[in-house]
């Protein structure tokens, strides 16, 4: 038996608890191109939100605003009640260091994995807990090994990412994100770069996380996952929220024609 890896704080939400992530009226332009228009969203602890929408609708940009990889033009984002990007109760921007500390509380899984090629699988997983969070090495390694078992890759611990399949890389990337003990996990099309036969193994891990009560914002084109695992669906089109609904309503009874049109492409 191995210790269950430490996931997010799984305590039942107290009634007074602020949402893990609170987005208030986010706006973002790239040059003249409006990419996000007045986006708001609350994600309660333990919930999974799927962000859907056609290509170029601003899904990645939205996700990247949540950990300040992109700086929104207007609007506010609160992580567990603390504003991101600006110092407490002021409009003074956070220093690079303060932003880094905030980012370390959020895990991110990328479409193209973005594992660090010079580090082994284990090295990738322990790097940030060790050098950013400065936690105890023995404890981190034990936790990393437990996470590797969880994603079924313990035997790959000393291998370099270049020697892994896409599905294995993405499972390592998820373990890397979990090793930070994040309050929130972001997924940006985590399965889009995978061969179809490898999608399942990654989706399975993501479904388990959703069941275990991880708080997640998931950009995906996997409609089955969105329907089964999401608590809410946020549908973006050209940077606008077109629909924000529970999956049952979103898939079976969408209010907008744009969503109906979008969903038709996924009917098999």
């Amino acid at each position, binding site marked *: 038996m191995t210790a269950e890896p430490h996931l997010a704080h799984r305590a039942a939400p107290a009634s007074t608890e602020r949402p893990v992530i609170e987005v208030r009226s986010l706006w973002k332009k790239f040059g003249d191109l409006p990419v996000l228009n007045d986006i708001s969203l609350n994600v309660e602890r333990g919930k999974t939100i799927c962000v859907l929408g056609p290509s170029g609708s601003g899904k990645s940009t939205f996700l990247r605003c949540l950990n300040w990889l992109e700086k929104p033009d207007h609007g506010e984002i609160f992580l567990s009640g603390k504003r991101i990007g600006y110092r407490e109760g002021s409009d003074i921007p956070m220093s690079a260091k303060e932003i*880094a500390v905030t980012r370390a509380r959020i895990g991110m899984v990328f479409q193209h994995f973005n594992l660090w090629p010079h580090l082994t699988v284990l090295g990738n997983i322990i790097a940030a807990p060790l050098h950013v969070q400065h936690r105890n090495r023995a404890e981190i390694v034990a936790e990393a090994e437990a996470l590797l078992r969880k994603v079924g890759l313990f035997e790959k611990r000393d291998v370099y990412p*270049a020697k892994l399949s896409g599905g294995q890389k993405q499972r390592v990337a998820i373990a890397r994100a979990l090793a930070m003990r994040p309050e929130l996990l972001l997924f940006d099309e985590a399965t889009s770069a995978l061969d179809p036969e490898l999608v399942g193994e990654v989706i399975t891990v993501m479904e388990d996380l959703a069941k275990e009560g991880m708080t997640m914002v998931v950009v995906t084109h996997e409609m089955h996952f969105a329907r089964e695992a999401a608590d809410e669906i946020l549908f973006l089109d050209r940077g606008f929220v077109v629909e924000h609904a529970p999956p049952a309503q979103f898939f079976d009874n969408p209010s907008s024609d744009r969503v109906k049109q979008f969903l038709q492409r996924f009917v098999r």
Partner: protein
Amino acid sequence: MLQEFSIVLDHKDRLLIGLGNTVWIATISTILSTVIGAALAMALMSRHVMLRRAVRVFIDAMRCVPFLLLAYIVYYGLPSLGVRFDNLSAGIASLSLYNAAYMGEILRGAWVSLPKEYAEAGEAYGFHGFKLFHRIIMPSLVLAAVPVLGNQVIQIVKDTAFLTIIAVPELTHEASAIQSMYYVPFGAFVAAIALYWLICRMVEFVVQYTEHLADLRR
């Protein structure tokens, strides 16, 4: 001719001392020029325009100055500004500064072609500033640029020979001392060349080993 070599062999102690000095001078200069070069590369990639320009001027200046002149200036010229080095420090300082410019340029080139996703993943996980460079970017740069960096190390080894003009007791200096004392130019210099060749083989070996490590990660 055989006699020349046997004379050189009689004085192999001096040659070996010269060899030893060349090796450690080149080693220290390699380390220093890599560290300074990494700092220059960071400056070249920084957001501060003035810093980028200043470093660019320094690098271009270093690349236009013949190394010999730089060594002269550091050893003979700086004392008139009140900065005095002994010949070894002057030699190491000029070698390190001179090659740092090239190292900086090599690392910047590798950095520009490094997929930006690695650094971005680093930032997303809370790395920033020097830690991001040291833990995430620099290792990838070294792996990507090993062969070119290796060439520069060989250049450093060969540049140590210039330090004979400021009387640093390195390999060329000792070889020419032997040759002028006993008039054995062929034997002394061929022996020195053979020893330089040996050093280069060692550098090559390290480069190949590092390349092998890089291959495991590609």
